[in-house]
């Protein structure tokens, strides 16, 4: 009797499950409704499901690029003593704390009335750097309006006084102030702040007392080029360095990293990654025309136009069809603006990085000044960070990790070098800058009377091959 009832229970459960399965097959498949109309067929278009998938997206796919777009690549703590300045990149454990403090200060500064913002001379800028202050070095210049929007400040009027932001100094000396450099016009501005900046002072003091110049952390210690008067020619020395270039006193020890192409391994494309990529481009993997070229490039064709190519070296190339406006990056409810266009791009980029597990940490490397972000057409580039250091890409014709063209909020062209990086257990010590300088400028000595170095920093170099990559000095000569 007991066994019989047990069997009946099992049978009932099986019948209920089968019933649910058969019912769902009918309700979900639109072809099975006699009238051809299926109330449930497009469930993913319902507001509830859209909201739900947005929530899931938010927690699964954090938009890293947008969050970090206004993070400086270097924060330099100026203690007031020219021999002890500390440089923190994004991998330093104190970076986030200092960055949060400076962000709060900037939020305060960019709501100051434009009437109180005054142009100042470069002397005042350098004076601020010699006192207790924090220097925020950005990867590129931003239009002030864009910068304040990315900080989350609504209706800032700072852009009425300052067009573009290249770098920032936050002075902890009294009276407190934020100094902004606009490299495009070679002007400096002062934004006075009220109240005290206790957090900032404490942070600067922390570094001054905590780190001794003799200990291992002396690798953080830098001098600016202008501290050492390297920004001016002297005697037979014809090489000059931009005044704000940080020069490390000690060799930099960095991890050797492993570089991999996440979509093409062991001579085959990862089909699961390909299908995820196609979904992001709003393409049905089975209905699109696809083929492989003789060199192994995967090509996707829509309406007789090649619109997506995946190269075996990890480069993804999208070109909107001539008759198409491109991929919409902006939510239909949001207005078309350069801010929304770039936000849409960073979301898109992050989706791709998440889909193929490529490196998520990126920074904007092309100018986002007013001149470069005026609608309708905006061209933007991004590059990878690894261990807080930029990764310099040189693969085929690609010199950036991402190059995108956006027209009125629609993505028209997009090239992305998909890469994943991991630390190895091996480290490498970069030579001190002075040892490499002669080697770097030698090819230019015959061609130029003076060799002006615009940028000099440590970065990784990725030429597209699999395997280990080492960080070393990267030097850009001003042409």
């Amino acid at each position, binding site marked *: 009797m007991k066994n019989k*009832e047990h069997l*009946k*229970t099992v*049978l*009932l459960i099986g*019948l*209920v499950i*089968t*019933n649910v399965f*058969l*019912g769902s*097959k*009918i309700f979900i498949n639109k*072809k*099975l*409704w*006699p009238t051809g109309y299926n109330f449930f067929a497009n469930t993913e278009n319902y507001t509830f499901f859209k909201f739900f998938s947005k929530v899931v997206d938010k927690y699964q796919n954090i938009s890293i690029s947008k969050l970090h777009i206004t993070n400086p690549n270097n924060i330099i703590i100026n203690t007031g003593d020219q021999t002890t300045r500390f440089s923190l990149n994004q991998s330093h454990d104190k970076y986030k704390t200092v960055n949060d403090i400076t962000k709060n200060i900037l939020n305060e500064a960019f709501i100051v009335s434009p009437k109180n913002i005054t142009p100042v001379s470069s002397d005042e800028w350098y004076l601020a750097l010699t006192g207790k202050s924090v220097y925020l070095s950005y990867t590129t210049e931003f239009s002030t309006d864009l910068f304040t929007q990315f900080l989350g400040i609504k209706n800032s009027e700072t852009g009425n006084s300052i067009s573009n932001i290249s770098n920032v100094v936050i002075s902890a000396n009294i009276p407190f102030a934020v100094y902004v450099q606009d490299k495009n016009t070679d002007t400096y501005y002062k934004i006075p702040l009220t109240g005290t900046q206790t957090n900032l002072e404490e942070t600067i003091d922390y570094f001054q007392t905590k780190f001794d110049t003799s200990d291992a952390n002396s690798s953080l210690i830098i001098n600016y080029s202008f501290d050492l008067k390297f920004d001016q020619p002297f005697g037979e020395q014809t090489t000059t360095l931009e005044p704000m270039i940080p020069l490390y006193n000690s060799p930099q020890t960095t991890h050797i990293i492993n570089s991999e192409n996440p979509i093409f391994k062991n001579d*085959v494309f990862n*089909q*699961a990654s390909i*299908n995820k990529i196609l979904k992001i481009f709003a393409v*049905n*993997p*089975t*209905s*699109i*025309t*696809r*083929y*492989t*070229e*003789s060199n*192994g490039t995967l090509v996707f*064709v829509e309406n007789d136009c090649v619109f997506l190519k995946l190269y075996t070296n990890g480069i993804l190339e999208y070109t909107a069809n001539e008759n198409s406006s491109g991929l919409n990056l902006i939510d239909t409810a949001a207005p078309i603006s350069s801010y929304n266009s770039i936000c849409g791009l960073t979301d898109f980029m992050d989706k791709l990085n998440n889909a193929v597990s490529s490196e998520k940490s990126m920074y904007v490397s092309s100018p986002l000044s007013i001149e470069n972000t005026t609608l309708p057409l905006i061209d933007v580039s991004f590059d990878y960070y690894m261990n807080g250091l930029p990764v310099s890409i040189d693969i085929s014709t690609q010199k950036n990790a991402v190059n995108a063209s956006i027209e009125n909020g629609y993505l028209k062209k997009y090239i992305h070098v998909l890469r994943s990086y991991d630390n190895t257990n091996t480290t490498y010590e970069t030579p001190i800058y002075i040892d490499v300088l002669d080697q770097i400028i030698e090819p230019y000595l015959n061609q130029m009377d003076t060799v002006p170095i615009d940028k000099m920093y440590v970065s990784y170099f990725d030429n597209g091959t699999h395997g280990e990559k080492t960080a070393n000095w990267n030097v850009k000569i001003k042409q």
Partner: protein
Amino acid sequence: MNWYKAKTILIVFFIIMNSVLLGNLIYSADKATVITPEIIDATINILENNNIKIDKSIIPIKTYDIPYAEVRNIIQDYDLFVGKFFNEYIKSEDNMTYQNENQTILFYGDKFSYSLKNPDASFETTSLSDSNAIEIAKKICEFYDFDISHALTSISLSDDMFYVTVVNTINKKPIFDSTLVITLCKDGLVSINGSWFEENDSQLIKTKLSLKSVTGVLVDFILEPNRPEYTNEITNLQLGYSTYEAETFHKTIALIPTWQISLNDGSTYYLDTRDN
């Protein structure tokens, strides 16, 4: 109510419900693929108004979804492919022609053309006839590593030359661009022309492709720019697969479901039948 009694009632109820749902599923799925006579008649009228005749009996009344298929070109590397035929050759500057005294292979897009100045007598063609030409052609294909286990064959004759056409199939449907024409004469093999694709083992997508109804495709045919303007008649309709732009080379390709439309003047047209 007694729970044991309730269970029995529920079991009976769900058995009936599931039977109804299953029956509905089978009936609706089958019904959904049938084209009604009214639609067929309307389509025939539209075609006739555009100078196209068609016999109602050749229009299939059911539209089936066919499996997604990806294929691999038998030509993956020109040097390796030519090596199946001959080892000593001179390559042209554009690497598209391989030649020696007697043999030539020419590549164009997905296609190749293998020809001999003096026919190859090694394939026992002295007793060549229309009854054994296909068997000889099959042996030739196997000799050169073409997998013809799923292929369809046909033969035509002209001036003592036998033309054996071999068409590969996948999921029991012809691949219209995967066709070889083997030319034989009593002296031996004269040439092999065409292109050949075989199923790609590594494809991960295993799903069915949703197709347009054949009547929709027939209406699309009206807009076909290359079809003749004079009155013509559709003599055959066949569903299969084709590749994309055979004039360019593809190492692998996802096949496009295609209807082949044959006219009474001998011309054929291929229409994409994917339901996007």
